[in-house]
């Protein structure tokens, strides 16, 4: 109970809650022309990517298993809904469950890889895993319609509803991350990341914890993938591409990997990318990519710990300055 109180009372939580409340009010200002439709769509995408990055953060940020194949889980979740609704004509929830089951299988494979490989080799294996699924998706025509992709039909639901759902999903992932970080699970994850041998010698079955991390993270990613598929109503083999994987990890890294605030702050990246694309339009698409890339490089050069570390660094800097002042006074 103490933990919850401390989490709610912290200053950043209040700021984020205020922003979320403002965003939640957006649909009220919608007019006949639908001028709020685009901001609502953007908010929905930002929330989804924050949620994706937060679930990636559990595996890579906490446990140190640097997966660049998270599109695998995302794609499985998306395709499960597509195939389930379009081909198998089953209930939506059954379809989502199917995605989770397949994701757990793939996560288990990645977990077994994690027992044997670490560092770059693990990263490469994770990329290969996503690529395998991409190949299956783009060649198994009977199941996935290959490059055409699958479109689904759903009752028309206002965008605002999806935005509220995305917000709820995002908040859920943040809460899950918070409780994992504060529990035995999170401490052990970080211990495995920092010094696996020592973690073992302190009684942690590190292989099992690495497996837990990938299972939790994979399941969450799959669920979010299913949600996004249901929202955009179409899926094609691009969902397995490294573009998705890298977008997920950019959001987490630019904000601050391994911290709860990282992905939340990193959500700004999605916004920036979309806005840039809007400003420059399709004729200058490459220019927007260049500008976004430049901004990313700049942030990583100035603050490798991510944007969310800035207040902490500033606080440390101020304390340093104050203690220096005190020292000078004493000298005088």
């Amino acid at each position, binding site marked *: 109970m103490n933990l919850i109180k401390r989490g709610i009372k912290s200053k950043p939580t209040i700021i984020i809650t205020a922003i979320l409340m403002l965003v939640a009010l957006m649909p009220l200002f919608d007019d006949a022309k639908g001028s709020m439709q685009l901001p609502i769509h953007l908010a929905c995408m930002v929330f989804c990517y924050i949620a994706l990055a937060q679930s990636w953060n559990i595996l890579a940020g906490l446990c140190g298993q640097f997966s660049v194949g998270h599109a695998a889980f995302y794609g499985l979740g998306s395709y499960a809904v597509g195939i389930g609704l379009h081909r198998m004509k089953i209930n939506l929830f059954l379809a989502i469950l199917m995605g989770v089951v397949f994701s757990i299988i793939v996560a288990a494979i990645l977990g077994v890889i994690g027992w044997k490989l670490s560092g770059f080799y693990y990263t490469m294996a994770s990329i290969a895993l996503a690529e395998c699924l991409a190949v299956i998706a783009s060649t198994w025509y009977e199941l996935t319609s290959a490059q055409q992709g699958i479109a689904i039909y759903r009752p028309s639901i206002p965008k605002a509803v999806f935005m509220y759902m995305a917000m709820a999903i995002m908040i859920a992932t943040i809460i899950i991350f918070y409780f994992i970080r504060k*529990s035995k699970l999170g401490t052990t994850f970080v211990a495995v990341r920092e010094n696996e*041998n020592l973690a073992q*010698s302190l009684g942690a079955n590190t292989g099992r914890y690495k497996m837990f991390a990938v299972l939790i993270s994979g399941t969450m990613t799959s669920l979010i993938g299913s949600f996004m598929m249901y929202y955009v109503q179409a899926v094609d083999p691009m969902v397995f591409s490294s573009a998705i994987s890298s977008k997920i990890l950019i959001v987490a890294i630019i904000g601050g990997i391994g911290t709860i605030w990282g992905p939340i702050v990193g959500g700004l990246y999605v916004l920036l990318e979309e806005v840039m694309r809007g400003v420059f339009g399709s004729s200058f698409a490459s220019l927007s990519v260049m500008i976004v890339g430049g901004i990313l490089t700049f942030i990583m050069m100035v603050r490798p710990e991510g944007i969310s570390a800035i207040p902490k660094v500033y606080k440390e800097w101020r304390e340093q300055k104050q203690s220096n002042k005190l020292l000078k006074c004493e000298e005088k």
Partner: protein
Amino acid sequence: MFFEVSEVTKSYGGLVANDKVSLKIDKGEIVGLIGPNGAGKSTLFQMVQGFVVADSGSIKLKGTELVNKPTYKICREGIACTFQHALLFPKLTLGESVRMGAYCRTSSRKKATEHARRMIEFVGLTDKEDKQINKLNIYDRKCAELVAALATEPELLLLDELFAGLNSSEVSDMIALVKRINTELKVTLFIIEHVLKVIMSISRRVYVLDYGKLIASGTPQEISVSPLVIKAYLGEEYNELES
């Protein structure tokens, strides 16, 4: 027998790191293990901890066979260790690092935190509980690693060169701490050490390894006059130390 290593052999290709090493430790003892560089001391420790699997022989704690057991199970049997280079978990705070050790016996955050607090108080680092490990100095970091190991509630604690890199006043603080661990927490200690002064002053018995073979054992006084040991390891160095 509390802890027993019998006829343990480990070779890396043609190099025999441990050749039929046998030793016994009683409950409550402080036993030292010395030997020149490359004598196989750390290999023996790694085998006890389960990081390295012995080719043959057996290692038993209170009758339970430890060879072929994974490290985390050996820890739960009651053996903890500190590492040669005290890295610990650089990005965790001292409190959380120790809690990590406490989680070995419990899953409850509350119990683990309480236990970790008690252990940190025991070594007198309470004021540094919220500090990150990589911001601690070398002595505090060694203490931190010691507390984290102690938090797993071990019966046998292996210390691998705990005193390396400490200055002389820190060494005497650490000796006092190690003695308190032995007497107050009733933990049996098995120590690898290069600083001879330390090993001579705290251990009741010493084993000497050379080229993977156990060449002598006995009280520090007996060891220091054994011609074999002097030839293999102590040589002129110890004579100088004596004078």
